[in-house]
């Protein structure tokens, strides 16, 4: 079991990806702390993770855009399990902000999407970095997006920009924390139907023809699953990836890679 004795903090723990990450780590012995603002779904996902054979899961209500809540969440993780060995900066999303021409982008929308995706990643990384440095080891995986590589058809500029920022943040922090034995990487998934908003975007805002055109451009001819993203995240957090740091791994069925 790759994660025996490891504590894994997963933000965005109420969503579909957070659920898949939690189940994946728990199945391999990890103690999971799920953080999110949505108490109901958090509880539901945590119950599933605890149902995994020997699954350990704590929850924390936490808005990753608020420093005090992030600090409290990490303190809670330390109090529950005594360490934070792995951080998955998964909280993110476009908050339902529409894609509009750049001259009409609302400043407040820009701020809140940037805060959720980029500032949240910064605050959580800052909150765990001291603990990991003291331990002389740690793994951090940030969630970027294929839209940061190629732009988005339906995705708003705020989200794409924030996810591009995540790639740069990943490299810079990897450079800084490497000498302390801490690996920092990112994954950039293609379209994964991990929640209602994405399903709605895929099924309601694209026509049948648009969907089939899109899939014909994907070499593997299909969308990905949350579990497939989880497998890559688990690999990056394992000792098999000890020499991998600062990278953003594209997981998109072959649609695009830098």
């Amino acid at each position, binding site marked *: 079991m790759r994660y025996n004795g490891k504590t894994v903090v997963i933000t965005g723990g109420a969503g579909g990806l957070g659920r898949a990450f939690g189940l994946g780590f728990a199945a391999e012995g990890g103690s999971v702390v799920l953080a999110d603002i949505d108490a109901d779904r958090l509880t539901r996902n945590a119950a599933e993770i605890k149902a995994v054979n020997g699954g350990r899961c704590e929850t924390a209500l936490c808005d990753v855009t608020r420093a005090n809540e992030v600090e409290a969440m990490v303190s809670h993780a330390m109090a529950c399990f005594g360490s934070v060995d792995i951080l998955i900066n998964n909280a993110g999303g476009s908050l339902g902000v529409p894609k509009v021409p750049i001259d009409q982008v609302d400043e407040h929308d820009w701020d809140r999407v940037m805060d959720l995706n980029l500032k949240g990643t910064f605050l959580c990384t800052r909150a765990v970095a001291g603990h990991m440095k003291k331990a002389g080891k740690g793994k951090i995986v940030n969630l970027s997006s294929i839209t940061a590589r190629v732009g988005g058809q339906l995705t708003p500029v705020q989200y794409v920009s924030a996810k591009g920022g995540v790639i740069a943040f990943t490299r810079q922090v*990897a450079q800084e924390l490497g000498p302390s*034995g801490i690996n920092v990487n990112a994954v950039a998934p293609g379209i994964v139907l991990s929640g209602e908003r994405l399903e709605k975007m895929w099924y309601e805002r694209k026509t049948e023809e648009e969907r089939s055109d899109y899939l014909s451009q994907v*070499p*593997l*001819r299909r969308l990905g699953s949350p579990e497939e993203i989880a497998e890559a995240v688990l690999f990056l957090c394992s000792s098999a990836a*000890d*020499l991998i740091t600062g990278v953003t*791994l594209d997981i998109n069925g*072959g649609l695009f890679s830098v």
Partner: protein
Amino acid sequence: MLLSKKVAVVTGGGRGIGKAICLVFAGKGSDMVVADIDGAAAEQTADQVKALGRNSLPLEMDVTQEESIRLAVERIMTEFGRIDIWVNNAGIGSRAMLHEMDPVQWDRVLNVNLRGAFLGTQAAARIMMNQNGGRIINISSRAAKGGSYGHCSYASSKAGMIALTKSAARELGAYDITVNAIMPGFIATDLTKNLSDGITQPEQRVLKRPGRPEDVAYAAAFLASDEAEWITGTSIEVTGGTGMFAG
């Protein structure tokens, strides 16, 4: 196990990174075809694979010769009946400043590293398309992105492997064949042990420890596994964080 009952072919499997890939894959349950231009080295790796309890087939194979590859594939199909994983790992370097490089040196490096990977990919694709599935992994180099002081032919061949990887991924995706690359940074092997003089500039690395062949093998094992099913056309840098200092 992660690769149980797979049949994997590794070119350049006799030593260095190729040997580590053979042993790590075998440890995860795969049967191994160890191909190398040095037949004796291939046999040594194959013996170590057998000691891990897996079937192994050593083959003397020259990746620059189509006939050599054809015969090897024929033999593999007779012995195992299929090929699940093909790793294009065979490679050479050639140290010379570009203003002094003999074009013959350039041709030799491109011939082994890039044309060899093309021929290997082609041979693997022909089998895997019939199987409707397979994994092809190209061992490129961080030099593909960053260039390499004193090794322009090597760096160019490795960059070519990235474009080969992406193109093959596009063509073969419809057959559920994934094609990916690994870009190792500096790894201590026979190929690299004599590089530390004036003409080679080692890159800075943010992680403390130097790279080992096994680090590359673990990444290859991940890409070869069922866990990496939706990953294709991309490359993973296994470098300890080199090339990250831009001021």
